[in-house]
């Protein structure tokens, strides 16, 4: 016997646990995508003469910005998910 352990309360509990799992997954994905912005640097840092040229650095900066944007969006989605906790 307990206070109000109804099936409706259990549904909310399950919903909250799912929400936390989703927010966690989004934050991890955000970290992975953020880290992915460094991949072009590895690739572009292998020109024939062994130096990174100015256009390559420009490409890297743009690519990093692109990835950072989506990493940020995913992080915001994780925060939005957590706001839905009951």
């Amino acid at each position, binding site marked *: 016997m307990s*206070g*109000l352990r*109804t*099936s409706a309360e259990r549904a909310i509990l399950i919903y909250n646990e799912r929400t936390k799992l989703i927010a966690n997954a*989004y934050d991890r994905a955000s970290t992975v995508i953020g880290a*992915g912005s460094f991949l072009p640097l590895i690739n572009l840092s292998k020109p024939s003469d062994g130096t990174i040229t100015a256009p390559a650095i420009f490409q890297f900066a743009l690519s990093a910005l*692109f990835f950072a944007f989506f990493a940020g969006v*995913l992080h915001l989605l994780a925060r939005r*998910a957590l706001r839905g906790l*009951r």
Partner: protein
Amino acid sequence: MDPLLLLAYFTLPAAITLIAFAALKLHERSAPPGEDVSPSESEQHEQVVKAPINNGARLGTLNHSEDAIAVYDDVVARYDTAGDPGLREPVARALVNKGYTLSMLNRNAEAIAVYDEVVARFGTAGDPGLRRPVATALVNKGFTLGTLNRSAEAIAVYDEVVARFGTAGDPGLRELVARALADKGFTLGTLNRSAEAIAVYDEVVAHFGATG
């Protein structure tokens, strides 16, 4: 870099973000009924009241029952006179939890008085949010009467639960009706009225056996 690889490389984060957004939307749609993702002002008040009620429940489980009762009393004192209909449910829940905590302290007479107060004050409410605390108060009252060997009164209370909420469609209420019937069967068993007890258990299976 291979153009295809480059394309995949830049498409992937966008695709992941889009899928994540769609998945979150689907998840929000699967939210349990009766709760809005962006609560109204009245619902925000309810959420503010829920926090102390949950604190009280935590205190109760930590054996700080007196503190828990003080928290429930505080909730009732603060919000009972607010006049906001949305605050009646948390007040009813606080009273039910207070009654339960009192019964755990063996202060059964006080517990029964609190359960009676819930039924007297909110018993005629049509709001499903208020019907559940009323049903819980009655089931808990029946249980408390059973522990006091007042079996006849306990059975009468369980019958009242079935009479009031037996036809309810709300899953929470149906669960409480099933519990009332099961507890009634148990109480009949303690009175050596085994045939009646079996009939009640059969009724539980017949009514709720197919519930998923």
